[in-house]
């Protein structure tokens, strides 16, 4: 066996059976699923908190929970959804499961580090949530701007900092592992430009993780000094500067939004070609646009600070830089549309969620470009317009892609198919509920409803109730999904190894795959998107089926 990189012995020593999912397993597939399930549990908790927010907001007065509890719920919702759901799942879960297959390796570069990175997450999450019951959670929003975060009750804030530090560490370990795996563990003979697009997305994302997460860690360490050691980095009463915190925070947290969405872009690029039976359109421009997003993403952070009193030249620079991200992102979107065009598309749940993603994300991206314009942002900043913008992207984008990916890879992981009917019901409920919930929030923001409030002007009540109704639909939509996932695991039709006839390497082994990923040598896939027929064949197959239809 030629592939030097794989700590084969170690993974085969691991426990077998269901118990391995609760163990310190070194198998990248087990770790991937651990990430996914763990993340989904946190998604349900974060969604429960979102539901609490939406219930509170059905009436203009603060009646459902005390005001400080509202702020805790809000902070927990944002933190959980970002750090415990989207980031670990689009990176950790799918990355761990797929990347070793895609590069033709039997495991990640550092399996032990990989397991450590995962096992940092559950304690961090539990700590964060338990702070609510023990001392009261942090209540200064997921951005934790000082001096508010210094003056609110210290215990909750410190626990928040600790758990975000752990999660940041986990994400850095993961990022290092992905970079090493993609660049160094490639199967001999596999060229970089033959890698499936998700590898490129993960490479770009991991570069962002490695470059920006440590800055957040450093910043939070300084913030914790301000809280416990009475230093004054960000405390104006002691000569500190609150704006510096914002710069440092957004230096991480803007790249973080691409950490949440670039892998999703990669996943969509895997899903679309398979179900459209077409090559991914514009592979090379896709790769370049990912790298352009990575570079630009590092220099746009201050668009979150247009009203913080930044100097004019700075606002101008960040406006232009931010808006230009639309260009590489746009390339990807047009390429996806071109991938759909001329395809033979199976309208299954995976495709529905992917197309839902395209539509939602374009809207979120457009509102993003509007927000990037300083004069626009001075009105819309910190309003529900921003809330609408980013839910369109994180939910309409990343979460839709996660669902799409689950429909796509479930047969691989379990060897059984999901029910299409339940999948379509799930999609319909999610898509309608989502748009009902977040579309009206654009109007709310523009007309004067600030974000992070438990009480608001009564004129906004009706629209808020519509939004809450949408949230209810979204909550309901998880039921058919969960039912589908559980039932199909036992009763779903047997999928066979490659139900979609896909060409990417993970499908060229059994479903579920063996611990070593392949019996024998890893296949060399130099054309992961080699689908498609010529124009003549395409027309031929269209006509012949029409004739068949007429005969029937």
């Amino acid at each position: 066996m030629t592939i030097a990189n794989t700590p084969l012995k170690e993974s085969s020593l691991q426990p077998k059976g269901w118990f391995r999912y609760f163990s310190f397993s070194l198998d990248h597939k087990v770790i991937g699923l651990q990430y996914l399930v763990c993340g989904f549990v946190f998604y349900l908790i974060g969604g429960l908190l979102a539901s609490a927010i939406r219930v509170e907001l059905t009436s203009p007065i603060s009646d459902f929970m005390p005001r400080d509890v509202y702020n805790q719920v809000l902070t927990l919702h944002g933190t959980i959804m970002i750090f415990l759901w989207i980031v670990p799942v689009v990176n950790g879960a799918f990355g761990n499961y797929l990347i070793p297959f895609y590069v033709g390796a039997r495991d990640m570069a550092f399996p032990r580090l990989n397991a450590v990175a995962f096992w940092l997450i559950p304690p961090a999450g539990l700590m964060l949530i338990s702070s609510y019951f023990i001392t009261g959670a942090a209540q200064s929003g997921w951005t934790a701007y000082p001096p508010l975060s210094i003056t609110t009750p210290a215990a909750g804030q410190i626990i928040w900092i600790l758990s975000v530090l752990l999660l940041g560490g986990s994400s850095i370990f993961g990022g290092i592992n992905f970079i090493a795996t993609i660049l160094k563990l490639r199967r001999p003979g596999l060229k970089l430009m033959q890698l499936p697009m998700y590898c490129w997305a993960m490479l770009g994302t991991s570069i962002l993780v490695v470059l920006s997460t440590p800055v957040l860690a450093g910043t939070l360490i300084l913030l914790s000094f301000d809280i416990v050691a009475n230093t004054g980095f960000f405390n104006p009463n002691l000569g500190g500067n609150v704006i510096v915190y914002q710069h440092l925070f957004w230096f991480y947290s803007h790249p973080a939004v691409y950490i949440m969405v670039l892998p999703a872009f990669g996943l969509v690029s895997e899903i679309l070609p398979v179900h459209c039976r077409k090559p991914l359109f514009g592979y090379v421009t896709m790769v370049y646009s990912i790298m352009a997003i990575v570079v630009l993403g590092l220099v746009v952070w201050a668009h979150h600070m247009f009203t913080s009193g930044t100097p004019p030249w700075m606002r101008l620079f960040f406006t232009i830089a931010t808006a230009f991200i639309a260009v590489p992102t746009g390339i990807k979107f047009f390429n996806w549309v071109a991938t759909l065009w001329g395809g033979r598309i199976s309208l299954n749940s995976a495709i529905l969620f992917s197309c839902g993603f395209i539509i939602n994300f374009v809207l979120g991206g457009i509102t993003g470009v509007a927000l990037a314009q300083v004069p626009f942002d001075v009105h819309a900043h910190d309003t529900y317009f921003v809330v609408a913008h980013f839910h369109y992207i994180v939910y309409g984008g990343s979460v839709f892609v996660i669902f799409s990916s689950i429909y796509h890879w479930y047969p691989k992981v379990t060897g059984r198919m999901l029910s299409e009917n339940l999948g379509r019901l799930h999609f319909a409920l999610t898509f309608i509920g989502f748009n009902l919930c977040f579309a009206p929030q654009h109007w709310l923001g523009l007309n004067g409803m600030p974000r992070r409030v438990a009480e608001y002007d009564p004129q906004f009540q009706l629209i808020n109730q519509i939004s809450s109704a949408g949230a209810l639909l979204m909550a309901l939509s998880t039921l058919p999904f969960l039912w589908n996932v559980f039932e199909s695991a036992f009763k779903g039709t047997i999928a066979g190894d490659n139900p979609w006839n896909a060409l990417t390497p993970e499908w060229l082994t059994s479903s579920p795959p063996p611990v070593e990923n392949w019996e024998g040598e890893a296949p060399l896939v130099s054309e992961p998107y080699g689908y498609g027929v010529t124009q003549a064949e395409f027309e031929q197959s269209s006509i012949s089926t029409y004739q068949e239809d007429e005969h029937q």
Partner: protein
Amino acid sequence: MTTIPQLNKDSQEKGSEVDEHHDVRMFGLAAFLIADGMTFAGFFAAYLTFKAVNPLFPDAIYELELPLPTLNTVLLLVSSATFHRAGKALRTNESKACQKWLLITAALGIAFLASQMVEYFSLPFGLTDNLYASTFYAVTGFHGLHVTLGSIMILIVWWQSRSPGGRITSHNQFPLEAAELYWHFVDGIWVVLFVIFYLL
């Protein structure tokens, strides 16, 4: 069709299996050090911004004494060189020399820490006195933590290289090389820190 010649080429490379694995670990460490370096970059950026935006009150200005930190810089730079010698000795199988240089390096690291302590206790300001004092202690402290960790690592490497058939030999240089890369990194950070905090 192009796959076949490539496969042939690969089978020729089979011999270097161990090296390849080895490479990945060094690569991972380098990636980690880039991340670690970004933490420092964040601190430096914060300090420089504080300095630019929040000018000190006239009477709060102090000049950091230079002799001790300059000595520290020399200590660390020399220790980088001695570590390099240790690595060279290991590669040429001179185990005794390697151990000697490792010990000298560790001693230099510990001397640095001691002299840093002396500086801390002789400074006229404390952690919470003002913004600059706080940043100064936070950043030098964070760096000192790195030096402490590095010194411990060197001592471990030294311990492991003592027995002839032990973990660290010219066949398994990874622990030593990893510690060396880390140590050079910590030195490099110190040089930047020295320029930013003491000279600017």
